[in-house]
């Protein structure tokens, strides 16, 4: 196999894949091999990945359920878009892009901290509904804004960036999101964050500053949602608030959950596939067939989630998954797992979410030595 240390390979694989895809498509785009529809699709995929990865920070690593991610994106889209409108004549295209990315991200991050504050007091469903409420409030405010400020119900007209280049920028942003998210998670701070998720009381007792880290995660997560929003405004001629309803937040959540909680690569793949499926269904099923879109999407969603999560299907999953399939062609390397480096950064693919959705149940059940299913060694 590749003569790199396993750990390093593991860490950088998604950068390499994303960068390779970006470069390949950039070349194809600049040599005129890509249709507009491909470019639109790529833009959408990049934005979806940014959103999914940033949301997985909150849901997967911090273990809090947020249904307001679209709200942060909305802030980024409107403020970044407005900044672009104002700055583009003054600064030119590229500086305006950079400044509006920063503005959109920063303002979204500030709101992330504001919404992070209730997260210190609320858990589970209660936090979920508060984030959902926040998203709807943001949407309502932009919806009813005056024509001069944010365009009101007609939406804000924003400059559309050159479509040959925008998706490349969007993928660079994906790389940036990945870099920040993964570097943070794979550091002592990331350990503190996952510690809070695993057991908040123990984390506090171990001296972890829960307040600081919760706010940090909300800030970073919404920063990148804001960035995605700015990219969104650049990829459309108008920004309309109807887009940012709770349904869109849920769509992003679906990507995170399908990808596997706390699994960044999974979130990337899920975001790509869902966006791809969405656009393909939309453009293939025209006319009278359009009604089938949601039906097919819903069926795929239900089947996938049940297949991936049903406890009864566990043996089946273990028997027929890609890992075992690939494993047949690859010599088993038992020494790999002994390496301290290799497992140092293990990101759990499944986290215990009992506490996320059921606050008034006992948060975590005490361990009993004879509990069935947990075997001692």
């Amino acid at each position, binding site marked *: 196999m590749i003569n790199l240390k396993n750990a390093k390979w593991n860490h950088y694989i998604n950068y390499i894949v994303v960068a390779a895809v970006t470069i390949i498509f950039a070349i194809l785009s600049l040599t005129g091999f890509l249709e507009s529809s491909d470019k639109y699709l790529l833009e959408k995929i990049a934005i979806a990945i940014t959103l999914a990865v940033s949301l997985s920070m909150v849901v997967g690593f911090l273990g809090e359920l947020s249904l307001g991610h679209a709200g942060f994106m909305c802030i980024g889209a409107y403020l970044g878009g407005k900044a672009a409108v104002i700055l583009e004549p003054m600064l030119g295209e590229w500086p305006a892009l950079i400044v509006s990315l920063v503005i959109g991200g920063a303002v979204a991050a500030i709101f992330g901290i504001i919404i992070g504050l209730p997260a210190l007091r609320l858990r589970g469903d209660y936090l979920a509904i508060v984030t959902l409420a926040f998203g709807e409030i943001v949407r309502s405010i932009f919806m009813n804004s005056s024509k001069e400020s944010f365009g009101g119900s007609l939406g804000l007209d924003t400059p559309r960036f050159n479509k040959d280049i925008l998706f490349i920028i969007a993928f660079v942003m994906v790389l940036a999101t990945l870099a920040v998210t993964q570097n943070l998670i794979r550091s002592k701070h990331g350990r503190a964050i996952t510690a809070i998720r695993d057991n908040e009381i123990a984390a506090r007792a171990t001296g972890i500053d829960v307040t600081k880290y919760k706010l940090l995660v909300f800030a970073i997560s919404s920063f990148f949602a804001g960035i995605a929003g700015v990219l969104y405004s650049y990829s459309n001629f108008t920004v309309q608030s109807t887009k940012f309803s709770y349904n869109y937040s849920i769509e992003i959540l679906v990507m995170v959950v399908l990808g596997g909680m706390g699994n960044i690569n999974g979130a990337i793949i899920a975001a790509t596939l869902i966006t791809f499926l969405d656009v393909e269904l939309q453009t293939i099923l025209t006319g009278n067939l359009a009604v089938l879109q949601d039906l097919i999407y819903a069926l795929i969603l239900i089947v996938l*989630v*049940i297949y991936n999560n049903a406890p009864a299907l566990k043996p089946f999953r273990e028997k027929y998954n890609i890992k075992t399939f690939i494993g047949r062609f690859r010599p088993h390397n038992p020494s790999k797992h002994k390496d301290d480096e290799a497992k140092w950064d293990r990101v759990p693919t499944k986290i215990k979410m009992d506490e996320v959705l059921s606050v008034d149940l006992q948060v975590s059940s005490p361990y009993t030595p004879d509990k069935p299913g947990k075997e001692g060694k």
Partner: protein
Amino acid sequence: MEFIETLINGLSIGSTYAMIALGYTMVYGIAKMLNFAHGDVIMVGGYMIYVGLTVSGNPIISFIAAVLSCIILGITIEKIAYRPLRGASPLAVLITAIGVSYLLQSSAQMIFGSAPKMVTVADLGSISFSGLTIPVYVLVTLICSVIIMVTLSLFVKYTRTGRAMIAVSEDKGAAQLMGINVNRIIMITFAIGSGLAAFAGLFMLMKSPSLSNTLGAMPGIKAFTSAVIGGVGSIPGAMLGGILMGVIEAFSLKIPAIAPYTDAIEFLILIIILLVKPTGILGKKRREKV
């Protein structure tokens, strides 16, 4: 006078929310899952009433048919989409619930078309006294909500099945060890919840006779919000939350300057209530054992 009038309007809006929230809170409080498809079961209930009226012309028969079909639908959804995920992450169940919601909506559009249907269940008229006019359906909805609330509370408190429900909501594993058939209890919960959804469908149609496949979506979210305001899993809380939500909405719509922001104001008040009382108005706070 205007105050009382607005209050009555608030009750009118809130009674629907309360009715939906009661069904929501049953499923939500006992099966511990956010059933995002609940609003769409209401929609199916509405369509069933429509079909019943078209076929039989009798509101009572069509309503009974709607209740039965909603119960069957609820049980089926639970069996196919939720039961396989018992024991898996609650988020996975949340996602299948969303899938079921999409499925029901698009099926409804496929079967009944995209145009809204006008369904006139029964014109109950309105009663007036001393300058106030109250549509009768508001009173009927309110009275029915209260009856349902009381019945549910008594059912949960005093029947064997009801107590088993509480046990299941507290701890599924322990309940199972005590000999409770958890699957059966959750199935009954879904049946009750879905039956209540048919009630909600009926009352929504009595109020606004226009029936489309998105009928339940936004009221569903508002009702969920109401249930959270009232306190998750609390039956009187759902009622209280719903009424409160309706009254806030009515008063907000009354003031021209803030009327367009009505939804935002409702949600803002939700946030404030939760910040002051993190478990909702009637929610129980439980201390974690350390």
